[in-house]
């Protein structure tokens, strides 16, 4: 069930469109925030929106492979953009935390990071994202060869850390976090069964060509 493919010459433009579209919710929230449209506690609302969009784009980045495997729809050209957009959201989320939320009071920030498991998990997520973002370019892929693939497997613990960070930041589990827990479980669970799945497929293909 292959979708009609985009003509190759339109690919770069569509990637740029994805960047523009992807960053839109954050920019719009910033605009609303400046003009008093984020409700009574705009800083927290903005911080939460940025974190939520980061998590969404992380999930989107990890859905590319299952879609290709299972639906034969190849969106791999957009994966780097999805990952980098997630990274930008996390950077913005972290910046808001440091400045608007904690007011750059470093002692209180350090105490927060060291004492609170959910903040620590967020930091783990951010620290993993940095090398991934820095190597998300063609030059690095060529340079690192197969090591690039190994490095980018860190996306899995990253997603897990991000999910736990989110869930532990909540007072109680409601429908919305339950949905994210389910999505992340499926995305990561798929990676566990994928080797077997691929092997079976390959075996079938081999017998078919014989």
């Amino acid at each position: 069930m292959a979708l009609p493919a985009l003509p190759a010459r339109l690919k770069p433009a569509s990637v740029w469109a994805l960047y523009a579209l992807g960053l839109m919710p954050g920019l719009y929230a910033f605009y609303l925030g400046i003009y008093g449209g984020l409700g009574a506690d705009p800083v927290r609302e903005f911080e939460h929106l940025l974190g939520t969009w980061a998590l969404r784009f992380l999930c989107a980045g990890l859905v590319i492979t299952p879609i290709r495997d299972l639906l034969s729809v190849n969106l791999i050209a957009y994966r780097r953009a999805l990952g980098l957009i997630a990274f930008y959201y996390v950077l913005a989320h972290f910046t808001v935390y440091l400045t608007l939320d904690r007011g750059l009071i470093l002692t209180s920030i350090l105490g927060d990071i060291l004492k609170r498991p959910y903040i620590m998990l967020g930091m783990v997520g951010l620290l993993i994202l940095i090398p991934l973002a820095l190597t998300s370019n063609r030059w690095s892929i060529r340079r690192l060869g197969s090591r690039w693939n190994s490095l980018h497997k860190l996306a899995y613990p990253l997603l897990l850390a991000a999910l736990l960070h989110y869930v532990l930041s909540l007072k109680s589990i409601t429908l919305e976090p339950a949905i994210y827990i389910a999505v992340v479980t499926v995305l990561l669970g798929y990676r566990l069964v994928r080797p077997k799945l691929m092997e079976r497929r390959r075996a079938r293909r081999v017998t078919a060509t014989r």
Partner: protein
Amino acid sequence: MSLYRPPRTQSSEITPREVYLSRRSFMAGTAAGLAFAASGTALAAPLAATPSAYKVADKLTPKQDVTTYNNFYEFGVNKSDPAANSGDFKPTPWAIEVGGLVAKPQVIDLEKIMTEIPMEERVYRMRCVETWSMVIPWIGFPLSALLDRVEPLGSAKYVAFETVVRPAEMPGQSGFFQPLNWPYVEGLRLDEARHPLTILATGLYGETLPNQNGAPIRLVVPWKYGFKGVKSIVKITLTEKEPPTTWKNSGPSEYGFYANVNPAVDHPRWSQATERRIGEGDGLFGGRRVDTLPFNGYADEVAGLYAGMDLKKFY
């Protein structure tokens, strides 16, 4: 930042009152005009009250913020949910069953008691355990006035409160993934309950309580975290043992029975040392963090209640 001072302010000094008094008369007209359309459903109606000397000098949180940003899980878990989802709730008529270890158990008709006990306006700080805070002009009466009517027995040590359960009118009480067990229950030690700062609120900003803020009657204990302020109360029971309380049941390591505002005792997720005042400045950049005060600034009044207690243990 000014500390709470025991009553001594002249009532005439309560400046913001005039500001919203004019708003009140406008609202009165509006409310009367809409009264036909909404039988049984609360529309904020003007509520007369004598200004009380119990007031903090801090700037009031705008009414718009007080009535659109709060936790009331019976209407949903987001802080905008109570205002959005409480339209079907019917706060009239209302009765409160008061019983347990009392000489005169009774069912109290709210409308009646509101004509019998004088209503006062009290400007209190409100500090949420989530580290945000407000300054709210409540209208209400001391809980002790109600307790006096039922005459607690000598064996009564605690007061337990219960919120109404009405899944048909409170969307948060039905459906999948309900975050808490209903009814929402809370409690106070009897001496805390009798403290003059402890009130049952029936209004705010010169009007009856909006549904989203706990209509028609709720508890306000200004030196404790906001979750102690149980809303839409239908039952009050005097007990000998410490009664179960909702958030403590849901996370005993995070929420205690006492829940006194205490900058020195952190919540596992939030440092309680500072708080963000809601409604200060416009938008993202106007806000400010202020230091949280022991007992939310009411230490002079209430610290004595806890003499000799380890407040790190009894959080």
